[in-house]
């Protein structure tokens, strides 16, 4: 008995291969992202980074003498939309590779489609380990939650000298759950104590109940492992309840809206991420300048840099490979070693994850500032 869904996937897989090989026009690369809705900040910033890379490559004559055509689908920050978007990119637009998404939940939805159609997918900022476990066609350009969780645990323990940490986890985000569980494990391994664990759901606006319970547990540091829109409200409500300890979070905090929504409440909070525009490395500064020139003086976000690197990495793999065929492209991407990107030197490991360094940022005077780099 074959279900309708499996049948559809099988048809997709059968049709995608030969058609792609026959194509000699532009090389099509697809991207699915939340360009609207509550996660829009990530998707829009990623798109800007990718578009910059595409324009630069096309200005230099494209890849293998062929122009790169960039196709983007909006998944509207909705669960379930990724599947539709990726099916459309693969079956209608015949892309050779897919970029995206930012949130792990979206990547987890889309990855099986790419895997079955044998089209390589490069997740941008999906740090949950499960994403690349879906199959050998699924890669990511960012580091993974265990690494990020370890960085946060080490940071809380060593740099903030915390003994008691409280966790605030978003229960419908695989990203937040993963990050919290590694943070808990690693922090306890370092001799610390997890004094409170509270939960919320994405889209919640009222966190006073959880924060009141956390306040009663007297933590030194609170780790809110969700995304910026909730993190900003969490910090504001924590401050209004008189909970004045430092808050820390992962790369889900990285967005200008964190400061816009959080205001003074997010001052002195810390988060880990992939990239800081304040990093003085020459390749980073050159990228920041080109990005500013292209996008009316905006400073690139970490996801912009990741998007930029993701596209360049795929383009480099196509170039090395001599063909844009999806199946051969997979092997070329998997063989990437020490790719010099703007988010640092990237190597794709045996589990198709990227290994690279992390940076800790802190909010000071309403701006994220480079705090310290943490090597893997």
């Amino acid at each position, binding site marked *: 008995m074959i279900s309708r869904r499996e049948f559809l996937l099988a048809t997709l897989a059968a049709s995608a291969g030969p058609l792609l090989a026959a194509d000699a026009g532009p090389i099509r690369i697809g991207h699915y992202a939340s360009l609207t809705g509550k996660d829009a900040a990530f998707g829009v910033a990623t798109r800007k980074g990718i578009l910059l890379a595409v324009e630069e490559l096309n200005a230099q004559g494209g890849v293998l003498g062929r122009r790169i055509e960039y196709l983007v689908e909006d998944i509207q920050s909705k669960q379930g939309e990724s599947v539709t978007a990726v099916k459309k990119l693969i079956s209608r637009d015949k892309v050779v590779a897919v970029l995206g998404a930012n949130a792990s939940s979206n990547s987890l939805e889309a990855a099986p489609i790419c895997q079955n159609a044998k089209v390589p997918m490069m997740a941008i900022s999906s740090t949950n380990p499960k994403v690349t476990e879906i199959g050998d066609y699924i890669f990511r350009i960012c580091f993974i939650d265990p690494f990020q969780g370890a960085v946060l645990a080490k940071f809380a323990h060593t740099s903030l000298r915390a003994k008691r940490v409280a966790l605030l986890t978003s229960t419908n985000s695989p990203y937040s759950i993963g990050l919290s569980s590694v943070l808990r494990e690693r922090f306890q391994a370092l001799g610390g104590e997890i004094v409170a664990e509270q939960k*919320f759901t994405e889209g919640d606006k*009222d966190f006073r*109940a*959880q924060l009141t319970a956390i306040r009663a547990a007297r933590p030194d540091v609170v780790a809110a492992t969700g995304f910026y829109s909730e993190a900003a*409200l969490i910090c504001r409500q924590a401050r209004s309840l*008189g909970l004045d300890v430092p808050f820390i979070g992962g790369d889900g905090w990285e967005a200008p809206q964190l400061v816009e*929504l959080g205001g003074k409440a997010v001052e002195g909070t810390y988060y880990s991420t992939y990239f800081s525009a304040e990093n003085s490395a020459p390749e980073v500064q050159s990228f920041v300048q080109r990005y500013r020139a292209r996008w009316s003086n905006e400073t690139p976000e970490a996801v912009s840099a990741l998007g930029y690197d993701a596209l360049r990495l795929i383009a480099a793999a196509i170039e090395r490979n001599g063909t844009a065929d999806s199946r051969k492209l997979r092997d070329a991407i998997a063989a990437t070693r020490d790719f010099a990107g703007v988010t640092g030197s990237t190597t794709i490991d045996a589990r198709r994850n990227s290994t690279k360094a992390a940076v800790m940022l802190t909010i000071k005077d309403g701006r994220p500032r480079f705090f310290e780099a943490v090597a893997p």
Partner: protein
Amino acid sequence: MSEFLQQLLNGISLGAIYALIALGYTMVYGVLRFINFAHSDVFMVGAFIGYYLGRIVPEGTLWGGCLVLLTAMIGCALLGMLIERLAYRRLRGAATLNVLITAIGVSLLLEYSGQVFFGAAPRTFPAVFPSLNFNLGGLVISTNQLAVIVIAFLLMVALQFIVHRTKIGTAMRAVALNPRAAQLVGVNNDVVISFTFGLGSALAGAGGILYALNYPSIDPLMGVMPGLKAFVAAVLGGIGNIPGAALGGLILGTVETFVNGSQWSTYKDAIAFAILIIILLFRPAGLLGKFTVEKV
């Protein structure tokens, strides 16, 4: 103990907002016997009126805050009356189902026009009222929370006064009791219904501002969840009954907050709705509602 009091305060301030929205549902139901699903989106429009106006008036002043609150209430009252005039009046006397579907249509229209005009990304609501925190031995009270409770209470008292002590209020109750009989004794039903929508929408507008003050991230879909909760609160208290809506809102807000602060926080909505089901099993007309047999 201070944790308990803090949670109680958190719960009451959340419940007060649910109560304000619930009043709008209950009033319209009382008069027209249908659920105005667009009500929760009027609440959203109220927050956005406050957002745009709040950027013009100076931040953190009492008069600025009151001006924003009043303008949002008037704006929402006009919007509510406009919706009634354009969408519902033509359906007066039609089957309840038709009106219900129209209400869902108006709700979706407002939500998605909101995404077109205001943008889908969340906005930061300005701090229009002066904000201070008082610390009473571990119990932290913010002026915003106090403002929510006080303003909601004053508005409910004013509403009670309008409904029971004024001519138009008497007319509203007459229409609710029997529209045809009210018309026979000289009540202009159109005016009364229009007024009911205006009044309910003004409360939703006030609710929108108070909600945004406490949870200052607003977007065009922000009304969906609070609207659903407020609807539940209205049913819980006995739909059509004004003190019932207020009571339902407070119960729902407090229960939700206490569950949220415990280790079962994942089940907060499940528990809130389970309570609704249990109460309705024992009191089908809601806590304060009177069970009446439908007249033929």
